[in-house]
């Protein structure tokens, strides 16, 4: 079988992203040196600079690499660098500007972000930032997957898996096995719960899902004619039984909200070859609901948190802690392997996919991050009736699809890095591997046990 490979192609942004720094060079006080430091800029940004008439900025801010050479070398001291306030306004407290600009770079190039100098961020944080993944050395080998030297699989299977097979007296299977879909990356697509996205965005996502051979879950109302050719890579979300009858007949997977779950058996009877995914918003009730539904034959769960990865509750817990809880409860019941657990909400970086899997998910469903890949800044101006600053409703679908394909390649490569470092050859092996994860608070208490607190 040919090895899975994603083809990346550069997909440059339509709007110049705000630079992190602003270069201010005043002309007053310039000494007119023969060898002006501007000519000696190692990155040649003074030659490349232009006026961006759309954003009314000097593009030098985008090219500048913040090496501070010109600032320190100019004898007249006429050049200053400052932080750009527009940059600080991108995103929000969870979707920070650095996260968003990294998503843009990956969507543009398809490459993992690599940089010099050691890690620059806070020691640890909350949410996904209070755990680290493990690595192997000496006593157990790693896997050299990233440059293709060893094969690491990122396939997952979606659907119900039987714990055992039953045979009749003739040695034949009395009933058919439940349907399964195998996808080559553990990431599915869906639309965020907010915003007006327009047909070109849907088309981009459908095209990308088809090229990557993954699944894009869309509401039935959005399944218009243009999307029909992509049915093999689409899942349809219905929110009433009436919509059930309007489903296209070759749909492979559908999603229903929790309040339709009591009709699960009926739906399966009328559509035996269609996988039914049940969407359960994360809340204190989610665990019990999933345990009960699993007993009653549920196939796939979609646990959704809000955009910051928090459950819908008074004192919300974070998504990874809840998934840990649900995963372990299913393991205790002995039924974990029968169902597929997919998770969405607050997945903003490739490391979140790995960490969510470690905490017990089979895969993730991406929503908001895909919009960011299409240049969205999460300004939410559209909710106020202000026109979208990046005109997302008019993107070119092939360009949009390539941006998403590039991002998925970068994320998959990063997943391979994490798996390789751990010595794993298969992402399914990562599921629930909490024993090898490093949880900050636990390790801190152990390491600093003998140190007095203040």
């Amino acid at each position: 079988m040919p090895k899975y490979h994603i083809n990346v192609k550069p997909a440059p942004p339509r709007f110049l992203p705000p630079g992190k720094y602003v270069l201010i060079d005043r002309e007053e006080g310039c000494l007119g040196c023969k060898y002006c430091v501007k000519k000696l800029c190692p990155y040649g940004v003074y030659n490349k600079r232009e006026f961006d008439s759309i954003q009314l900025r000097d593009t030098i801010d985008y090219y500048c690499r913040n090496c501070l050479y010109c600032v320190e070398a100019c004898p007249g001291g006429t050049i200053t660098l400052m932080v750009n306030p527009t940059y600080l306004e991108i995103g929000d407290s969870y979707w920070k500007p650095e996260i968003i600009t990294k998503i843009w770079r990956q969507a543009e190039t398809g490459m993992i972000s690599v940089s010099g100098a050691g890690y620059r961020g806070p020691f640890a944080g909350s949410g996904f930032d209070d755990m680290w993944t493990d690595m192997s050395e000496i006593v157990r080998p790693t896997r050299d997957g990233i440059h293709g030297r060893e094969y690491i699989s990122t396939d997952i299977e979606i659907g119900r898996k039987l714990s055992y097979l039953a045979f009749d007296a003739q040695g034949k299977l009395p009933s058919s096995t439940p349907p399964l879909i195998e996808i080559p990356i553990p990431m599915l697509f869906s639309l965020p719960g907010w915003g007006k996205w327009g047909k070109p965005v849907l088309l981009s996502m459908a095209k990308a899902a088809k090229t990557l051979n993954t699944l894009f879950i869309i509401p039935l109302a959005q399944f218009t004619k243009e999307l029909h050719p992509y049915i093999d890579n689409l899942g349809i979300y219905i929110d009433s039984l009436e919509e059930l009858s309007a489903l296209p007949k070759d749909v492979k997977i559908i999603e229903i909200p929790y309040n339709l779950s009591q009709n699960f058996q009926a739906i399966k009877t009328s559509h035996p070859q269609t996988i039914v995914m049940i969407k359960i918003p994360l809340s204190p009730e989610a665990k019990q609901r999933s345990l009960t539904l699993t007993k009653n034959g549920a196939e796939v769960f979609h646990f959704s948190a809000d955009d910051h990865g928090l459950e819908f509750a008074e004192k919300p817990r974070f998504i990874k802690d809840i998934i840990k809880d649900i995963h372990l409860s299913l393991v205790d019941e002995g039924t974990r392997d029968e169902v597929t657990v997919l998770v969405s909400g607050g997945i903003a970086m490739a490391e979140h996919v790995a960490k969510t899997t470690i905490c017990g998910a089979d895969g993730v469903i991406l929503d908001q991050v895909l919009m960011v890949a299409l240049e969205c800044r999460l300004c939410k101006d559209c909710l106020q009736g202000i026109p979208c600053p990046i005109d997302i409703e008019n993107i070119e679908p092939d360009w949009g699809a390539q941006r998403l394909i590039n991002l998925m390649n970068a994320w998959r490569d990063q997943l391979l890095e994490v798996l390789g470092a751990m010595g794993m050859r298969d992402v399914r092996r990562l599921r629930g591997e909490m024993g090898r994860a490093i949880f900050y608070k636990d390790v801190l208490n152990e390491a600093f046990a003998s140190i007095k607190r203040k």
Partner: protein
Amino acid sequence: MGSWPQEVKGTTSRFKRPLGKYKIIKRANCNNCGLCVKLCPCGVYKFIGKKVMPLREYRCIGFSCEGSEHYCVAQCPEKALMVIKNPTIEALGDYRWTSDLILSTWYQAETGNPPDYMEYKIGNSGGGFDRLRFSFEFENQNFSLKEDVSTTIDLNRRNDGRPQVTISVPWYGGGMSFGSVSLTTMLARAKACMEWNTFTCTGEGGYPEALIPYKDHVITQVATGLFGVREETIKRARIVEFKYAQGAKPGLGGHLLGDKVTPDVARMRESVPGISLFSPFPFHSVYSVEDHKKHVDWIKEINPKALISVKVSTPVDVDMVAIGSYYAGAHIIHLDGSYGGTGAAPDIAKKNIAMPIELAIPKVHRFLLEEGVRDEMVIIASGGIRTAYDMAKAIALGADGVVIGTAELVALECTRCGNCERGRGCPRGIATTDMELSSMVELEWATQRISNLFHSWYLQLIDILKRLGMHSITELVGKTDCLFYIDKWSENG
């Protein structure tokens, strides 16, 4: 060996307008009377012909001068002066290397002493070293030793007949390969380490011939790429370091991108110019502790006098790896924590894989104690050790000594811009072998800058030991009772 400790020689920045924390605005109504030139204790102002200019603006100590009688702003008869915080400082630094830490490292590299108007002990990362304090930082302590204290450590505690190697300071330089940094940088490090009787390390990229005069102070590194590893490079070193992994990118091998593989680098590494070099991972000849012992035995055979150091990352079972290295016959177990520096690494690896050094040291220290072999092994810690205080804290947590890397480059005026791997390399000429860029750094200047920084660290370590009532740095090892951990931490530390 010459005088001890080494002399400080004031070594100013290579640039005309080095960044300082404060900026001086001299308004047009200045009458060039020259009062500020006389008053300023930092020598900020100078006459250029008849005009007064704040030529050494970067030395201004800012608002701490305010109450004094030599505060230029208050004393200026025309009220023409204003002192403000330099807005460019906002664009410098990050949580680990704050702008104060970068500027104070530059200050120490220039003057050989720590500054008294900027933070030089801790960063702003909100955890690890930045939340640890020594007991004397809280109590007003009059107690301080009068006698001399020692900062030397011995690196061979195996009693195996191999020569002892003693270093006069409890740190040595981390491996930075030829190709990732320039030859000038490597030579400067080697020369400074020779002056201070410690070591530097060749890194993965081979042993440049120019380092041979300093061979008694250079560690040969054997890494997975095996670049430039030959019998003679192993034979000439007093210590050979096996690099199994690197903190900043655990589970991955070295990265040297195409544009940095210049003809000289390619020749040293027996490769082709312009082709990116990604070292394999792991050592494909080591898949078990027994294989590891074979590796160690191989080096011991070739060089019967050398000590062996095993450099590893910090996985969950780092203590197992350490004991395995003990049984394989290593002398030094070198733990490289996840927040360490690098020339190029994927961002996901820097942040997420393996644990920070502060959490790994106590684990290994305790485990080796329990196994009864702690006093036969030397634990060296690295990975984000930035200041003399970080060093002392690492030792208090259980290490015998430390390895430093980034701090030496910051002494050469690195700004932590992070462009090391991009294109031709470092825009300041430090981490590049490009002819034009690397000529920005001059060898004597670089050597003196690093030596001055070492001087400042040495002074601080002596001070810490005296305040703790200890006669030797070896008394500090594992003494967690002289540390406090700050429970409540706010953004401004």
